[in-house]
C-alpha cells in the first residue's frame, strides 16, 4: 500500500483511454444512435401519414362507389325508359304500318273493282252491241260501235 510511480502511470493510462474514447468511441456511437432515432421517428411519421392517406383513400373509394351506384341506378332507369320508349315507338310504327297496308290494300281492291267493273261494262256493251247487231241483222259499223261504247261507259 505504498504510494509510488504506479499512481502517475495509472493517471496517464486513464488520460489515454479517455482520449481514445472521446475520439473514436463516443462520437460514432452517439451519432449512430441519433441517426437511428431520426430514422425511426421518420418511419413512424411516414406510417402515420400512410395511415391518414389510407383513411382518405377509403373515404374517397366509398364516395366513388356511391356515385357509381347512383350512376348505375340512373343508367338502369334510363335504359328502362328508353326500352319502354322503343317498345312504344315500335308499337306505334306497327300500328301505322298496318293502317298504311290496310289502306293500300283497300286502294288496290278498289282499283281491281273498278277495273273489273270497266271490263264488265265493256263486255256488257259488246254483248249488247252483238245482241243489237243480231237483232238489227246487220253489222253496226265499227265507228258507231266505238261511239256507242263510249256513250255507254260515260
Amino acid at each position, binding site marked *: 500500500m*505504498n504510494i509510488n510511480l504506479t499512481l502517475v502511470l495509472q493517471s496517464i493510462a486513464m488520460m489515454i*483511454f*479517455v482520449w481514445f474514447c*472521446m475520439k473514436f468511441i463516443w462520437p460514432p456511437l452517439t451519432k449512430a444512435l441519433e441517426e437511428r432515432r431520426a430514422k425511426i421517428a421518420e418511419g413512424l411519421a411516414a406510417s402515420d401519414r400512410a395511415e391518414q392517406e389510407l383513411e382518405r383513400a377509403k373515404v374517397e373509394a366509398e364516395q366513388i362507389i356511391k356515385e357509381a351506384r347512383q350512376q348505375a341506378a340512373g343508367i338502369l332507369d334510363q335504359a328502362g325508359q328508353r326500352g319502354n320508349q322503343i317498345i312504344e315507338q315500335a308499337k306505334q310504327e306497327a300500328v301505322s304500318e298496318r293502317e298504311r297496308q290496310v289502306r293500300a290494300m283497300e286502294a288496290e281492291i278498289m282499283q281491281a273493282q273498278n277495273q273489273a267493273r270497266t271490263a264488265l261494262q265493256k263486255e256488257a256493251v259488246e254483248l249488247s252491241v252483238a245482241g243489237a247487231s243480231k237483232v238489227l241483222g246487220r253489222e253496226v259499223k265499227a265507228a258507231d260501235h266505238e261511239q256507242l261504247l263510249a256513250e255507254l261507259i260515260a
Partner: protein
Amino acid sequence: MSASEQATNETSAGYIQHHLQNLTFGQHADGSWGIAHGAEEAAAMGFWALHVDTLFWSVLLGVVFIWLFRKAVRQSAEAAAGDAPPPPFLNAIEAIIEFIDNNVRDVFSGSNPLIAPLALTLFVWIFFMNFMDLIPVDWLPWLAHTAGIEYQKVVPTTDVNATMGMAITVFFMIIYYSLKIKGVGGFLAELTMNPINPKTMGIPKLFWPLVMAFNFLLEVVGLLAKPVSLGLRLFGNLYAGELIFILIALVFAAGSGLVADGLQVLFGEHVPAWFLFLAFMTVAATLLLNLRGVLSTRNTLLLVLAEMLLIGGLAFAGGQLMHFVWAAFHLIIVTLQAFIFMMLTVVYLSMAHEHH
C-alpha cells in the same frame, strides 16, 4: 479455496498478507533493480517503484473496454450500412451509452464534449477493474504462481495508487476547467468569498483579509477533499470486499481441511487448485446443461448437490455458499462504486463549469 500455493507461508496472516501484496518492481536496497520479495522490500523501494500487476490488469482491462466498444462502433456502422437491426451486442453497448448519456445530461448543464466520454470510460473501466474481484481470489494468483510470479493482485482498484491516480486526474481536470471557465479571478473569488461572503454580510473592509483567509482555508480543504474522497471511497470499498473474499477463502480452506478427510486422503494435506478448478468446471457444466435444456431443473439440483458433496464435503458447500452470497452482494458494490466514481466526477466537473 486452495491454499496449495501457500505452502511457504502457512499461517492465515501470511496467506492474507500474501494476497494483499502487489507485484512491485523497483530498486532494491543494494542498488539493483528487480521485483520486491515481501512487503518490507516493496516499502523500502519508496516512490520510484511500480506495481506491475496493477498496471498490467488496469491497462489490459482498459484495452478490453476499448476493444469491446470499437467492436460496437464497427457493428453500428455495418448495421447502418446494411439497414439491418442492431445485433444484441450492439444493443447492450448502446444501452450503456444511453445510460451514461442520460446521467451526464441530467447532471452536467454546460456543454463540454469531454465529459460524456470521460464518464463512459470511467464507468466501464472501473466496473471491469472492480469486477476482477468476483473472480475467485486464488485463481489468477495461482496461475501467476505456477508461471513463477510470486505476487499477484488482480483487482487494480484495491490498489490505492490506481484509484488515487484516477482521482488526481479528475482533480486536475477540476482545476483546469475552473480556471478556464471562471478565470483566475473568478476561481480565486469562489475560494475566498464563500461560505462567508464579506460583501453581503456588510463586514468592514478592514476585516476582509481575515474572513477571506478563513474562507480560503475552508474551501481549499473542500477542494482537496474531492479527489481524496473520490479515490479513497473506491479503494476502501474494493479493498474491504477483497479482504472479505480472502477471509471466506481462508475459512473455507480451513473448513475443508477439517471435514473433507476423503480429499485429504487423496491429495494429502493440501487440495490442489487444479482439482478445485475441475470441480468448478463440473458444476458450471451441469448448470450450463440445464440452461441448454438438456437437464431438468430437478435433476440439475440433485446433480449439483451430489457434485458438491462429492467434491469437498459440507464445508465446501458452506464455503461456496458464503462465497456466492458475498459475491452477489459484492456485485452491487462493484457496479455502485463504478457508478459513484463516474457520477461524482461529472458532478465535480459540472461544479467547475458553473459560473457565479
